[in-house]
Every structure is written in C-alpha cells, then in structure tokens.
C-alpha cells in the first residue's frame, strides 16, 4: 500500500484530468502551493462574502437609475478629481522614492556655496540618466496633486457632498489638504537653493510668531531659530518618513469612508 493519500484532495490528479493550458496550470499550482501553507482560500472566501454583502447585486449606475441618457457626462471629470489626487500622489511617491536613492539631506551651509543636498540635486539633473525627467515628474505630480485636491474640495463644496453623513470626510479632507501643502512645503526646502532657504525663513518666522509655544514649535520643526543642517534634516524626515505614513493612512480612511457611504447623489 502506498503512503500517498489518494482522495478528493489530490489536487495534482485533478489538475491532470482537467487538461489545462500552461497559464492555467501554473496559476493553479501557485495558488495550491500558497493555499496549503497560508489557507488563502479561507480569506478569499471572506472577501467574496464581504463583496456580496456590500453589493447584493450589481448596482445601477447613476445614468441608468435616473434614465439620464448620459446627459451629464461632462460632470464626470469633476467626480474623478479625488481619484486623480490619489493617482498623482502615487506617481509622486514612486518618483520620490527613486529620487531618494540619490538625494542626501547633508551639509546645509548657507553661505552661497553649494551644499551636498544642492550638489546631489544637480547631479540628478545633469549626470543621471533620465534624472532631469525624474525630478520634473516628481515636481509636476506634486503640483498637479495639490491642484487636484483644491479642485476636488471645490467640487465637494459646490455639489453639497459634505452634508449629513459626510461631515467626517470633509474634516478629514481639511486635514489632508493641509498635510498635502505641508508635504509641498517640506519638499520645497530640500534642494536648499535660495528659494528654499528663504521660504524656510518665512516658516521659522511664522512658527516663532505663534503665541506662547512659538519658540518650542520652531525648535521642534526647524531645529532652531536659524536655518541649519538640523532644519534640512528635519524637513527631509518629515517629507519622506512621517508625512507619507500619515497621509497614506488618511487617504485610505477617506476613501474607505466614501466606499462605505457611496458617492453623494445626485451628480
């Protein structure tokens, strides 16, 4: 008697008798391999269950429901602005990660000589293949994201989509737009050129002018009352570590809430 079990669970024999195409059989064997170790099927089942609980049936689209004959197609780009912010954010994240391979937030002198940070940006722009384009892509996707977020907010305002069940999402949106601008501001300082330096100066002065806790805020965010190496390092950490975590989480929550509540009707 063979020790190998031959029963309903003999997936290999089952696959053999099915006469599968190579793609199908590779897919199935990978799935089975993982499923044996991780019980993927259980989780897929859970997901499927969730899906059908959420959408009992394929919902009618807005145009179907109101028999609009696609009359308002020109509104749809406005309703895509939130998704567009998300996609622009993803593009910025990817290009930013690539830029991060070459950038170093180091030696922020402010005496008119190029610092390491400045030199690295120059290197990216002049010596690196596609580097100029990469920096350009990062810059433009960031700018476009901010613009899209502004416009998204306007569309939410003018379509009254912030009303009753959606106040929370509006508040999260305010936090998101603020953080998006902080993202832009911290990134603006990283090249450590004249514009960056003097924009940083404004930032320090703004923090210092907060009553009572101003000096503490300036110390915390800018590492002192004048712009130094500490400033650049803090901006870098905010830009590539802290903000990405917070903003990504908030976007996920924001879209999760939209998912649960649905898009405010009507279009």
């Amino acid at each position, binding site marked *: 008697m063979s020790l190998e079990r031959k029963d309903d669970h003999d997936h290999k024999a089952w696959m053999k008798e099915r006469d599968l195409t190579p793609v199908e059989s590779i897919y199935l064997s990978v799935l089975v391999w993982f499923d044996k170790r991780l019980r993927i099927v259980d989780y897929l089942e859970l997901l499927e269950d969730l899906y059908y609980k959420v959408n009992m049936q394929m919902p009618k689209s807005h145009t179907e429901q109101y028999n609009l004959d696609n009359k308002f197609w020109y509104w749809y780009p406005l309703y895509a602005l939130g998704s567009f912010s998300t996609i622009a954010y993803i593009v910025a994240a990817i290009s930013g990660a690539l830029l991060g391979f070459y950038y170093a937030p180091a030696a922020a002198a402010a005496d008119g000589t190029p610092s390491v940070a400045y030199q690295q940006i120059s290197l990216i722009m002049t010596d690196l293949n596609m580097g100029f384009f990469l920096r350009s892509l990062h810059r433009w996707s960031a700018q476009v994201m901010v613009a899209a977020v502004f416009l998204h907010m306007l569309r939410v305002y003018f379509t*009254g989509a912030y*009303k009753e069940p959606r106040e929370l999402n509006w508040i999260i949106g305010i936090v998101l737009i603020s953080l998006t601008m902080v993202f832009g501001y911290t990134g603006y300082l990283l090249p450590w050129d004249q514009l960056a330096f003097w924009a940083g100066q404004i930032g320090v002065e703004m923090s210092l002018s907060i009553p009572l806790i101003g000096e503490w805020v300036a110390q915390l965010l800018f590492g002192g009352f004048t712009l130094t190496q500490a400033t650049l390092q803090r901006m870098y950490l905010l830009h590539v570590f802290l903000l990405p975590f917070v903003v990504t989480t908030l976007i996920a929550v924001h879209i999760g809430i939209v998912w649960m509540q*649905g898009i405010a009707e009507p279009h």
Partner: protein
Amino acid sequence: MTEDTDTTDAEEPTEDVAADGGPAGEASGTPSELRSDGGEETATDGAGPGIVPPDDETPAWSERKQRSQGLSRLTYEYFERARREDQDLRQESSYVERDVLGFPAWPHEMIRNLAITSFFVGMIILLSATLPPHIGPPANSGSTPAIILPDWYLYWSFGLLKLAPLNPELSLLGGQKLMADRTFGVLANLVVVGAVAIVPFLNKGAARRPVEQPFWAGVGFGGVVFAFTISAYSVNNLIPMEPTLQFDLAFLLPVLAACIAYSVLKSMREGYMFDLNRRYYRLRPPK
C-alpha cells in the same frame, strides 16, 4: 452567527440561559455534536472532522447582551434600535427604488474615474517632459533675494500673513496692537481653515445643487475669488498696482463676486428647479 445576529431573536424572552456565565451553548446544541470527548474521535491531522463548529461556544447575540452591562450594554441596545429603525423604514417605504443617499463607489464610479485619471497621468508625464523645473543659486543667508515666494499653492497663506493693516489697534492699550502683525497673520490662516472646516455644521439639509442654495453658492464663489485675490496680494511687489488699492480690491472683489453669483443663481432658480423636479423628483420625491 447567522441566526444569532437576527435582532428579533433578542426580543424573545425564552432564551434565558447563561446569565450566570455558564457554558452558553449547552441549551441549544444536540448532545452528540456538543463535546469532542463523546463518541466521536477528534483528529487534528486533517484526516477527520476535527474542526468544532464555532456556534457551540460562541454566545448568542441575546446572551451577550444580557451578560454585558454599562457601556457595552448600551451599545448592544443601540444596535438593536438602529436595526429595527432600518427595518421599519424599509418596510414602510413605498418607493420602487430604495431611497439611496449615495451611489456605490464600486464599480461604475471607480472604473470611470480610473479611465479618466489615466489620461491625466499622461498629461503629467507630458508636462514634466516639456517643462522641467530648474534650480536656483545655492542658499545664501547673506544675500536676500528680491523675490521670496513659496510654491503657488501657498500664496493664499502668504497673503494672509500680510494683513497687518487689518490688525486692530486698541485705544484701550493706547493705540497699541493687541498682537504682533505676524501673529495676526498666522491667526488669520487658522481662522480661514477653521471656517472651511465647520461648513458642514453650518449648512445642513438635503440640497445638493448650487441653484438650490444661492446663498451658499455665493459664499463659495466669493471664497474662491478671495483665494485668488489674496494670492495676488501676496505677490503685490510683482504687480504694477498701488498696494493699498490692491489690498482693498482683495476684499471688495470677493464680495462683489459673491453678490453676482447669488443674484444670478437666484434668478435662474425657478426655471431650473422646474426642470429638476420633472427629471428627478418623479423618481424620488423629496421628503
């Protein structure tokens, strides 16, 4: 879980088990499937039915409710009420369509959004290929540049920092200002953001379209114009115009714009609402 979560169960007084915290399932399950120490052998090597159905052990909805006290009890009771309310609403509704507050984000909306946005991602790539940014001279604390600017999206905030002329001088303090001009500017930023944040708590109701609420549309339009004028004011050293005049315009233009938007929408309102009623409210009469 399937039958346990049914709210009507919780109402039945027959299930008065387990108030003492004893094993919850004993009242309901048949003896043979209750315990694994009975006739059936439990195997853990995957050969037999080794998995015990969870509903033996899991306390039912009503039992959990009975056991809990304090805040968790309140939560259970509220859930029950909310579910009953939903059910009542659904039953008394005479509409053919369910009275939806929103359209599902998936699939129609998201798929359409992805299609539209992928086009705009192409535009980003085109832009960055054609208009790459440049880098200025290295930082130099010794030479202040003539033009100090943040990115364009912060101009509005930068403009609000220059509101010194509005900072009130208190005669009580002998004509002195209560706070430094720059503190006033930072405060103005907070006020603007705060004002936007509380909009949902000021404007309530079911209206969605600008024509339905000309006032709020006017406020919004004025706000947009103010964002532009205050941004323009922040770069007033680049604009060949008297700064005081520009300062006045920064506040007058938004008000003007708001009034115009208001009156235009107000006069459009009747005809538009007629159309609207015909198209939408036949399907979903307003409450």
